[in-house]
């Protein structure tokens, strides 16, 4: 009996001592200053070390993107879309300044009327299967991209394309039925050989710096240096191994333990921890393309009332959302363009401020002095969409609007969203495009075939707005387009269909011996100049 009592006491004492000695890290809400938006995308490396280190060839980079791959088909956007530049390349790519620069095409010319574009391709670009890329391949790619039958996502961008013709071995002309922004589509026109199309989903073959070796689903993807890559001396790495690690914590542990060298998709809550680890550097991708937002279904009262929608915009406390849902680590927005975009309207940046009194006024004016109740569909059952919705729920409650949250698993979420079966929804929106037109169409209404606001094609709704947006897309002169987008923005903000919250930004962490790791504004990973120091 005695022994047992002593043992219990001993164990309890040990436990208490251990807890005390772990120096309990009490989580505190650190109030941070507004993060300054950095326009330059991350080309990560040891620039700050001062010494200009010469890149060294060799080595294997272990990388984790998070979930496993579903398909390698470059025209589909399902999971891990950032990997594409490892295997595939397009005629142009997004530059560090947020514009387009030549890549597989040395140069391009758009016609005066905007109905065609001519690409001048590089010579001597080889595919992984050994043959050279020529104009015929690009022509085939355009036709494949235009084809809606396979159900891939790229056909959206080539909706107005009418065809491509080979001008000579290295020159291609693409024609369009109307003048629309073309470069985003072309920057996603990853060129792959026709003979590889059958198996492209499981075996990527392109012109990129790394050649596909093997894919073991659930285990890893192995890519080896492509010896005949068109850029001399590149890539530096011998091998890239991409490991799917489903569990978030497990990804962190792997990075800390050193079994991976780079991790994309670091959870915001862990950014601080990783940043303070000595041999890791943490970067955030620049804002610009996708943002978190609340949307309302304007066919369902009371959301068909403009005053009500404006009230919703005044009721949101973005700072609180930033502190709680985003752990102090987000760039909050009122208008859907980043400061780096040429369509950014500085004068509209503070259109809505947090003003619950004004919100209540507007609600009373609209005929709801006592508020009302509604439901909010939430994208997924956990994560930022739910976190920010919970904060917003409180904000709305304080102006008299009772919102019931409906967290929904993704497979059920998408159909409900697409069929507009919601009153409010916590969603992300925006389209990964450099040209402001893509952002507009995704964010607001005017996609003729798919929108989330319950609008059908034959309803003439805000024809003025629709007209402006379409005209801005057709117009070629940048100044005129900027003006048109400004007008459209004014309407959009005044009408309040969308309540933008914050930019979706990827946080990624790399070990300090990894240099030249580049991501662009769309979040894609470019490893052609990546190298490892010992």
């Amino acid at each position, binding site marked *: 009996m005695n022994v047992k009592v002593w043992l219990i006491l001993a164990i309890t004492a040990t436990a208490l001592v251990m807890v005390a000695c772990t120096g309990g890290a009490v989580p505190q809400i650190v109030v941070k200053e507004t993060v300054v938006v950095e326009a330059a995308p991350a080309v990560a490396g040891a620039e700050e070390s001062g010494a200009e280190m010469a890149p060294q060839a060799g080595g294997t980079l272990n990388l984790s993107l998070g979930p496993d791959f579903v398909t390698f088909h470059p025209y589909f956007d399902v999971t891990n879309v950032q990997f594409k530049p490892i295997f595939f390349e397009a005629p142009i790519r997004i530059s560090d300044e947020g514009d387009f620069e030549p890549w597989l095409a040395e140069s391009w010319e758009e016609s005066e009327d905007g109905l065609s574009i001519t690409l001048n391709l590089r010579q001597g670009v080889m595919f992984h299967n050994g043959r050279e890329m020529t104009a015929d391949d690009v022509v085939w790619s355009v036709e494949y991209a235009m084809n809606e039958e396979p159900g891939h996502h790229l056909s*959206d961008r080539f909706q107005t394309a009418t065809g491509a013709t080979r001008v000579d071995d290295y020159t291609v002309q693409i024609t369009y039925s109307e003048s629309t922004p073309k470069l985003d589509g072309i920057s996603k026109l990853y060129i792959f050989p026709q003979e590889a199309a059958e198996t492209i*989903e*499981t075996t990527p073959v392109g012109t990129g710096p790394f050649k596909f070796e093997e894919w073991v689903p659930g*285990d890893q993807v192995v890519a080896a240096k492509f010896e005949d890559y068109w850029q001399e001396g590149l890539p530096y790495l011998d091998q890239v191994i991409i490991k799917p690690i489903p569990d978030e914590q497990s990804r962190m*542990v792997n990075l800390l333990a050193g079994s991976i060298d780079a991790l994309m998709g670091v959870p915001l809550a862990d950014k601080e921890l990783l940043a303070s680890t000595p041999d890791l550097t943490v970067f955030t991708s620049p804002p610009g393309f996708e943002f978190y937002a609340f949307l309302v279904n304007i066919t369902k009262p009371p959301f068909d009332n403009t005053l009500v929608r404006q009230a919703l915009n005044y009721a949101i406390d973005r700072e609180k959302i930033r502190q709680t849902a985003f752990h102090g680590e987000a760039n909050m927005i009122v208008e859907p363009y980043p400061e780096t975009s040429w369509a950014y309207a500085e004068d509209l940046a503070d259109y809505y401020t947090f003003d619950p009194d004004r919100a209540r006024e507007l609600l009373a004016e609209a005929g709801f002095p006592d508020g009302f109740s509604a439901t909010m569909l939430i994208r997924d059952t956990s994560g930022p969409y739910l976190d920010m919705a919970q904060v917003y729920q409180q904000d709305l409650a304080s102006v008299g609007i009772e919102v019931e949250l409906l967290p929904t698993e993704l497979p059920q979420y998408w159909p409900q969203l697409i069929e507009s079966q919601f009153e409010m929804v916590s969603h992300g929106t925006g389209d990964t495009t450099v040209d402001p037109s893509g952002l507009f169409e995704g964010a607001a209404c005017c996609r003729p075939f798919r929108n989330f606001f319950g609008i059908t094609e034959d309803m003439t709704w805000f024809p003025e707005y629709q007209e402006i947006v379409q005209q801005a897309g057709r117009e070629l002169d940048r100044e005129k387009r900027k003006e048109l987008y400004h007008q459209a923005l004014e309407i959009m903000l005044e009408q309040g269909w969308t309540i933008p919250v914050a930019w979706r930004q990827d946080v990624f962490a790399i070990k300090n011996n990894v240099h030249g790791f580049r991501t662009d504004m769309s979040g894609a990973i470019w490893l052609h100049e990546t190298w490892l120091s010992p």
Partner: protein
Amino acid sequence: MGKYALRRLVQMVPVLFLVSIAVFAIIHLIPGNPAEIIAGPNATDEQLAALRRQYGLDQPLWTQYVIWLQHVLSGNLGYSFINKFPVSELLALRIPATVELAVASAIIGAVIALPLGIVGALRPGSLLDFISTLFSALSFAVPSFWLAILLILLFSLELKLLPPSGRPDFQEQPAEHLQALVMPALTLGIAMAAKLTRYLRASMLDVLGQDYTRTARSKGLAETIVVLRHVLRNALIPVVTVFGLQIGDLLSGAIIVESIFAWPGVGRMTIQAIGWRDYSLLQASVLFIVLAFLVVNLLTDLTYGLIDPRIRYE
């Protein structure tokens, strides 16, 4: 006993057939389908329709089932809707990982449980018994994911002895493969041992109090023989039942452990298949799990026959 085993094996076939119908119906009744998920929210109606056609989802349900059944009977399990790999290949990749983990965990579980359970029963109320009970209680209380993370923190981050996740190929890196197996097997094995220890101890105490034990002792047999040959054998029957159920559980995939250790087993694959509505993969996966359970059940029943000669099968 051979005839009995054969009969049981034959009986599995109608069971599997009925289960396949039930599973097929259930997974198709859940809202959402793979075409919608791959297409995503920005797809046009035409893109969606095209994908549905490709996947054969525009056919009536019973047609789809019959087509699937025909394929299976000719040895073709189909292709994953999501990653286009043949289902048989995916299963061939994941099943060995799950089986390996199950076997390793079972061994660890048994190795821990047997001594602790026996000692606890032989010397109830002693210090050793107390430790055994404490171990059981703690292992029951501690959630597996917590234990897993603790182990990772200790062995991967602090001591840097074991890899935190993954499963290197055995043929290429045998040492690393075994290292990667240690922590997941330990996590699951400890959880198994918790239960087994209690069952074994209780069962043995029961048998120790029986008349024939007293008889064996009074015959002058050495204590070791009494315990191991007589008491243990009799005590094992309920324990074997539990053990069998636990192994069946492990074969259906220890999802949490597989997630944390990125162990490419059947459990995670099944959960992912549900999320992606990957009908063909899900169907095959669930059937494998049911089959595994049936086989383990059979083996458990046959083991009774081995342990207790009084149990005979016609």
